[in-house]
């Protein structure tokens, strides 16, 4: 089935709508959620598009027409899932059915053997990717705690959880939550699944769509996080929307593989070892190979950079001003001298090879890490990379441990370029 392309028209989308758009463009068939600020709008859009509640905004009205015309299949479960754990459990049930195949896009044959070699699909001569429904589940940051049990199980049934996306709405300042929390810690360090912090409503859809393409093939769920401010803030977007109808209309069915899907000790122990010792290194390799594909960008300012600046999440969003404002660029160079700037949505896993390449290529002395949240997840990973690889570089933590409240929002650019 051919992809459906249409013009969204001139429209401003919030961060939540942008994730919804990326999810639909990826052909996701099943969505589940437990509502909570700031992420409710995401599943709210799916509920409207699935026809469970009336369409109330320009995005769902416009996209809803196209979904109806194209026969797009969408099931949305919101409110009927009574908590975040149930939301993830339903998503797990929906994603583990693999009755269809797609051609390899990112994996070599050898890498395919590593990911799928122990499954019931191991004898497939063409080494195709077993696929089923793509699924999105979402909840606010604290929901990650409630859903922790099911999320941990999602790691144990890799690669059957390929095609599962998780969207986390982070309220790091407790604007509408009882507790502040940096969920990058939860997903990156505890669950150790690919984690990205989306930086802009204008590009989030592309990153989400590409995450589905890459991480489905790797057989691992992924997480996209957006902070409170960006979830609600609207931005102009690319007007052409393309729905992956092939993914949306895949064969339905369940393939038995109890050695993977019945999570008992003898099954999960070797898989846990494999996940940490073989699959995570593979994930690092693949995110390195597809660094730009995942929405990340490396820019050199000057010929002999001695510093690397990593900007993530809202820091990255505000850093975009540098490209448009010569004065800011001058301040950047005054502060750091020649510098390599890594604009990164990627939080985990950090590609060590990228930093090693930079250090070997340039006389890098310092790496400055700008990330939001108390977790300092990128900073700690870079320390680990530097130590393990024996690189003679200092890593400096420049993070802000919380998110300024939405009505106190100030630009982070001064924090980055001020001397």
């Amino acid at each position, binding site marked *: 089935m051919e992809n459906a392309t249409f013009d969204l028209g001139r429209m401003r989308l919030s961060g939540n709508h942008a994730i919804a758009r990326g999810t639909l463009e990826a052909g996701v068939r099943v969505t589940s959620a437990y509502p909570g600020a700031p992420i409710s709008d995401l599943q709210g859009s799916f509920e409207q598009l699935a026809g469970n509640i009336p369409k109330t905004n320009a995005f769902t009205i416009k996209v809803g027409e196209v979904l109806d015309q194209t026969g797009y299949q969408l099931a949305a479960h919101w409110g009927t899932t009574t908590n975040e754990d149930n939301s993830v459990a339903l998503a797990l*049930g929906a994603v583990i059915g693999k009755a269809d195949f797609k051609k390899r896009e990112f994996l070599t044959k050898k890498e395919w053997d590593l990911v799928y070699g122990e499954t019931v699909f191991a004898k497939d001569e063409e080494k195709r990717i077993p696929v089923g429904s793509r699924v999105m589940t979402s909840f606010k940051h604290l929901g990650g705690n409630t859903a922790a049990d099911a999320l941990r199980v999602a790691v144990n049934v890799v690669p059957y959880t390929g095609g599962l996306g998780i969207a986390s709405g982070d309220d790091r300042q407790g604007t509408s939550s009882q507790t502040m929390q940096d969920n990058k810690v939860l997903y990156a360090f505890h669950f150790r699944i690919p984690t990205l912090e989306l930086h802009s409503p204008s590009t989030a859809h592309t990153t989400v769509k590409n995450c589905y393409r890459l991480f489905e093939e790797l057989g691992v769920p992924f997480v996209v996080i957006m902070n409170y401010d960006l979830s609600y803030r609207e931005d102009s977007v690319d007007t052409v929307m393309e729905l992956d109808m092939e993914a949306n209309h895949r064969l339905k069915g369940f393939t038995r593989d*109890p050695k993977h899907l019945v*999570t008992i000790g003898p099954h999960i122990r070797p898989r846990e070892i494999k996940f940490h010792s073989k699959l995570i290194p593979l994930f690092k390799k693949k995110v390195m190979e597809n660094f730009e594909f995942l929405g990340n960008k490396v820019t050199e300012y000057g010929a002999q950079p001695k510093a690397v600046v990593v900007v993530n999440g809202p820091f990255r969003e505000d850093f975009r001003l540098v490209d448009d404002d010569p004065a800011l660029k001058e301040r950047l160079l005054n502060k750091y001298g020649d510098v390599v700037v890594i604009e990164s949505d990627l939080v985990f896993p950090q590609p060590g090879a990228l930093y090693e390449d930079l250090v070997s290529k340039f006389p890098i002395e310092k790496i400055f890490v700008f990330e939001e949240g108390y977790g300092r997840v990128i900073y700690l990973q870079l320390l680990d990379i530097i130590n393990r690889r024996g690189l003679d570089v200092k890593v400096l933590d420049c993070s802000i441990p919380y998110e300024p409240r939405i009505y106190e929002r100030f630009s982070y650019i001064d924090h980055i370029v001020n001397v």
Partner: protein
Amino acid sequence: MASSQNPAPEGPAKDEITYMRPVSNCAGCGDTKVSWSVHQGMRLFNRELGLKGKDRYRLIYAADRGCGNLQGYHTYGIVDAILCMGSGAIVGDGIKESCSEKEIVVTASGDGAYNFNISGIKFAAKNKKFGAINVIYNNFNIRMTGGQIPLEVDFDKEGPALGFEIIHVNPYRVDDNAELFKELYPRYLKKEKIMVVADGVCVLDMGKDARNAGVRMGHFKRSEECLNLQFAKERERVAREEPEKLKDLPRFKCRLCGIGLRCHALLDNDISICYGCGSCAQFPCPQDALSFEGISFSTSVSIPELTKI
């Protein structure tokens, strides 16, 4: 950190060694027998419809983490998915979203996990797109899982309140239960919501059924080490009515098997009231004084024997 008192190991740490142990249910448990009936029912359903090969309906058995379902996986290989605790029902509803029209999803949990599962079960009841067959292994009678805590569930009230029709079954009536599931699958396809409660073992019923089928029940035998069974009752009375005298009573070797198993045959030393629940067959008597002979209806491997009846 290594020190002179706590030196570092010389070689690499050895991998954890996990010793396999035989998988079996507790004495008296009939859980896995229901899952066998679930599958047998599907065979009968397809046979009745005359469906063969790819045209057949297939069963997907999404279970909760619990002894009955783990045994169902280990011994019979009839479990398709066990994910996190208390999630069988909701995972099953997720599977329904992505499975084919020729696949029927049955979910199962113990009565303890039922309490975790309520929200998922409620979801299944409210879900208008699919039917639901949810099996509950009600172990309350044998004090396993939910029975460990005094949390008896009145399924006849809670089930309809959640939106389910309740059907009680005796897990040992495997053929009857297979017939029942055969009848339930078309109702699932009509999007009906049914909860099958497999009540805890009833040794009286078992014994009667077995005798009616002409099965010679097994029985326990005692060696000379197993002394004065009647004394257990006296000790219980003293403990209850004159606890200050309890310390003066001599030790009694079979207090555990008589009282712990709640077996009147052992307590009364009367083999004629043995119903063959098989509890004593699995009791690890420290004196090797108790052994079991004959067919046990409690051990999980008894299904092939049951089907011969």
